[in-house]
């Protein structure tokens, strides 16, 4: 029996949200002034929520670990944001965006949530334009669109290659207006390290002031987690260096179930790893696959020479090149979805055809489109990306193909939430990449920005009122409550424990070890044996970590190693849960590929009879097995089909 209640409203799909909005409670302006809300995270999700809630009259406290709210990792999104505006008159609609998202997610997302996301998507664009986001425009002055991520319509809005930056600056500006008016209290360089629950309700957080090292208490009538994704569990990823799973992990340890932890997205076009000293991977926009052809050599001996640096790509004749995506997927070719393209690259490299010294890279070649369209056309389309590539690799992609390899990019999994975006802890909400909700097993390009802003501008500000309407009698939260004492002590002990190990190895060395295990066994292809091995290895790394980590510097001052240690401690546990979830889900689905569940041609095979559910894990205590709860996914509107890109 499941304890999960997703609270999906009854009624026809297209009417659920409006009926729900009409039915839920609202808080009067006079009472909003008496209510405090903590928003952890200032990315698109947290920033838009903080600004909207403050404008409505609530008192908001916002937190981020960077030195400014506008540096959240949303800033790095390049490609764009989807919305069902149908400005291009290509028969786009709310239903079509909904359907594409459900199908793209390989039928592992909730219909009702995804429909609502598509429904509010248009309002997001209007809001951003009103804030001064300089979206690309046509000569006539209307908004431009492009198509993105293998869909049949043009619904992606963009601001050059910096859409995330411009959207974030838009909602940060709205936040700034509210900070200036005293409605948002902004706490920069301040990291949430625990959740405080009083009488079963989320009532505050414990943070560490990263400048002074002080442990702080913050109380509120509701807490919102908007802390982004956990891709950095793999050490190397396209996420920013500070991205972490910490806040979501503390929520989990305090009773919030964790949804689909094994669903992470691997992006096929990243700059490959060089050597062993790399700290971060760089994404090359997906749009490059529109004009680049992906290949590896046909002959093994050529591959070996490339690996040794004895020949270059231009020495290989066309007939000796294996355009493996075009060969395997004639109808979609180089434009197959991210998960398919990533696995195909891995397959070639595992077979020994990788093209760099490490044998872990394939070519993305623009020679053919330059011949067809001219260099000036390619330059106009991708000039800035080519320049970025050259700065990093010292190779001119106009003359020599780019080298690319898949890398971890996004986490579809996250804190489990109901239709109101509330977690299993009353008064605790999760929004943006931090929650599990809308992308199922795989996220479509340009949909994360949409989801973050949908949650923050148009969903949470309404649904949180339904909860807070019953809290208007609750006075300001007392920071001297014994639960705050207890949690502050627990955080101090946790950090002291790490600090006092005084071992011999750096935090990063453990993070790298964890990342290697995750990438090899919980990465692009997973199987039972490997996952069990990973669980055992992670336990060993964890043990070594607590016996041998070295954290120099002062405990109660700025201490970057201590910050990292806290995050790695959480990643070690999260990695374990990811492996367990992947082990349980014995089907291939979206970004999750189980070698035991494939078709005869080696393509992913979903198992709808046994796995049409969201896995929601419940924490049971240190070193205890977590308990799996299942939220069955009921599809009332769409019919489940196997994806095929042949």
């Amino acid at each position, binding site marked *: 029996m499941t304890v999960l209640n997703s609270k999906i409203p009854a009624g026809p799909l297209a009417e659920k949200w409006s009926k729900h909005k009409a039915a839920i409670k609202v808080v009067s302006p006079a009472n909003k002034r008496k209510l405090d809300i903590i928003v952890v995270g200032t990315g698109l999700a947290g920033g838009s929520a903080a600004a909207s809630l403050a404008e409505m009259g609530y008192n908001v406290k916002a937190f981020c670990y960077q030195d400014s709210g*506008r*540096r959240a990792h949303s800033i790095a999104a390049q490609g764009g944001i989807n919305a069902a505006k149908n400005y291009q008159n290509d028969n786009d609609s709310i239903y079509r965006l909904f359907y594409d998202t459900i199908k793209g997610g390989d039928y592992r997302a909730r219909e009702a949530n995804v429909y609502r996301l598509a429904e509010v998507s248009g309002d997001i664009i209007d809001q951003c334009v009103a804030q*001064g986001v300089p979206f690309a425009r046509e000569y006539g002055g209307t908004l431009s669109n492009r198509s993105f991520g293998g869909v049949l319509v043009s619904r992606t809005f963009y601001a050059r290659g910096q859409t995330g930056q411009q959207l974030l600056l838009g909602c940060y500006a709205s936040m700034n207006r509210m900070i200036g008016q005293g409605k948002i209290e902004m706490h920069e360089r301040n990291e949430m390290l625990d959740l405080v629950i009083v009488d079963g309700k989320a009532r505050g957080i414990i943070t560490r002031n990263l400048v002074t090292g002080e442990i702080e208490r913050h109380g509120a009538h509701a807490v919102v987690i908007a802390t982004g994704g956990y891709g950095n569990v793999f050490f190397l990823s396209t996420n*920013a260096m500070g991205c972490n799973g910490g806040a979501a992990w503390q929520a989990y340890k305090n009773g919030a179930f964790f949804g689909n932890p094994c669903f992470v997205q691997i992006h096929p076009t990243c700059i490959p790893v060089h050597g062993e000293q790399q700290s971060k991977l760089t994404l090359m926009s997906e749009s490059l696959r529109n004009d680049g052809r992906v290949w590896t050599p046909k002959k093994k001996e050529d591959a070996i020479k490339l690996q040794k640096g004895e020949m270059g790509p231009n020495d290989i004749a066309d007939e000796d090149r294996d355009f493996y995506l075009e060969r395997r997927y004639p109808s979609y070719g180089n434009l197959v979805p991210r998960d398919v393209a990533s696995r195909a690259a891995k397959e070639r490299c595992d077979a020994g055809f990788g093209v760099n010294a490490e044998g872990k890279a394939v070519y993305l070649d623009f020679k053919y489109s330059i011949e067809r369209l001219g260099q000036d056309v390619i330059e106009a389309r991708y000039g800035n990306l080519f320049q970025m590539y050259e*700065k*990093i690799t010292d190779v001119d992609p106009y003359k020599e193909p780019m080298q690319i390899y898949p890398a971890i990019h996004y986490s579809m999994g996250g804190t489990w939430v109901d239709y109101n975006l509330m977690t299993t802890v009353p008064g605790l909400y999760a929004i943006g990449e931090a929650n599990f909700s809308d992308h199922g097993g795989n996220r479509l390009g340009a949909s994360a920005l949409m989801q973050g802003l949908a949650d923050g501008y148009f969903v949470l500000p309404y649904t949180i009122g339904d909860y807070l309407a019953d809290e208007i009698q609750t006075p300001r939260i007392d920071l001297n409550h014994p639960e705050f004492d207890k949690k502050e002590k627990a955080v101090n002990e946790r950090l002291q424990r790490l600090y006092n190990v005084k071992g011999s190895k750096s935090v990063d060395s453990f993070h790298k070890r964890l990342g290697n295990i995750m990438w090899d066994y919980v990465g692009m292809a997973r199987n039972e044996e490997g996952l069990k091995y990973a669980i055992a290895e992670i336990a060993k790394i964890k043990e070594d970590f607590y016996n041998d980590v070295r954290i*120099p510097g002062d405990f109660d001052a700025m201490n970057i190693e201590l910050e990292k240690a806290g995050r790695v401690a959480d990643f070690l546990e999260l990695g374990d849960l990811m492996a367990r979830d992947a082990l349980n889900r014995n089907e291939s689905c979206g970004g999750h590929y189980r070698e035991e569940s494939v078709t005869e041609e080696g393509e992913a095979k979903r198992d709808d009879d046994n796995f049409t559910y969201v896995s929601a894990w419940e924490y049971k205590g240190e070193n205890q097995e977590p308990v799996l709860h299942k939220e069955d996914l009921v599809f009332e509107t769409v019919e489940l089909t196997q994806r095929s890109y042949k």
Partner: protein
Amino acid sequence: MADKVIKELTIKVWRQKNAKTAGKFETYKINDISGGTSFLEMLDILNEQLINDGQEPIAFDHDCREGICGMCSLFINGRAHGPDDDITTCQLHMRKFKEGETITIEPWRAGAFPVIKDLIVDRTAFEKVLQAGGYISVNTGGVPDGNAIPISQDDAEEAMDAAACIGCGACVATCKNSSAMLFVSAKVSHLAKLPQGRVEASRRAKNMVAKMDELGFGNCTNTGACEVECPKGISIANIARLNREFLAAKIKD
């Protein structure tokens, strides 16, 4: 294409325990760095070395490592964001340095950006300037359709040019007066170029400039140094526009 390996480098870096104590330069050696290593990865490697030697690693700001968040800073061999053009420190690679070279690394130096620790400075003065007016006063909801007000492509592009500022502070660090004019003018221009932002344009300019002065940023004497070091190519033409908006506000007063 394989990058050369630099056998030895000398790193002279500013170390300062906190805002209250005085700082000084320390010198370290680092060996066998591939030219394909990024500058910040080189610092990661040096830090690993320091930790293994039982010393405290060098604190520096960084996050995205893709040149967009504006978190990284560093004055490298006398230049903000180091010896390459149109990039941030995190995009700088070691192939720009020579075998045996001594690399000097300092924090941003400006009265309005006090040092917090080592190479990390406090840039929250920028946020305070933004809070004084760097926005369009519009609430969530109840706004017109995105296509209701046409905006010419040229205006949208110009607004985007100015909006590309990443708020890193290199302009302030480079300016001999520690002026924040390039940063402030970028925000004012971005919003003033759009019909939605026009409504409050002069008020915005006035309030942001007043805040900037109050926070101890210096005056602009048009040296143009900021434009040269700005990683995002923000043009000093924006400063002229800010001055126009500011004057218009003064005339109204």
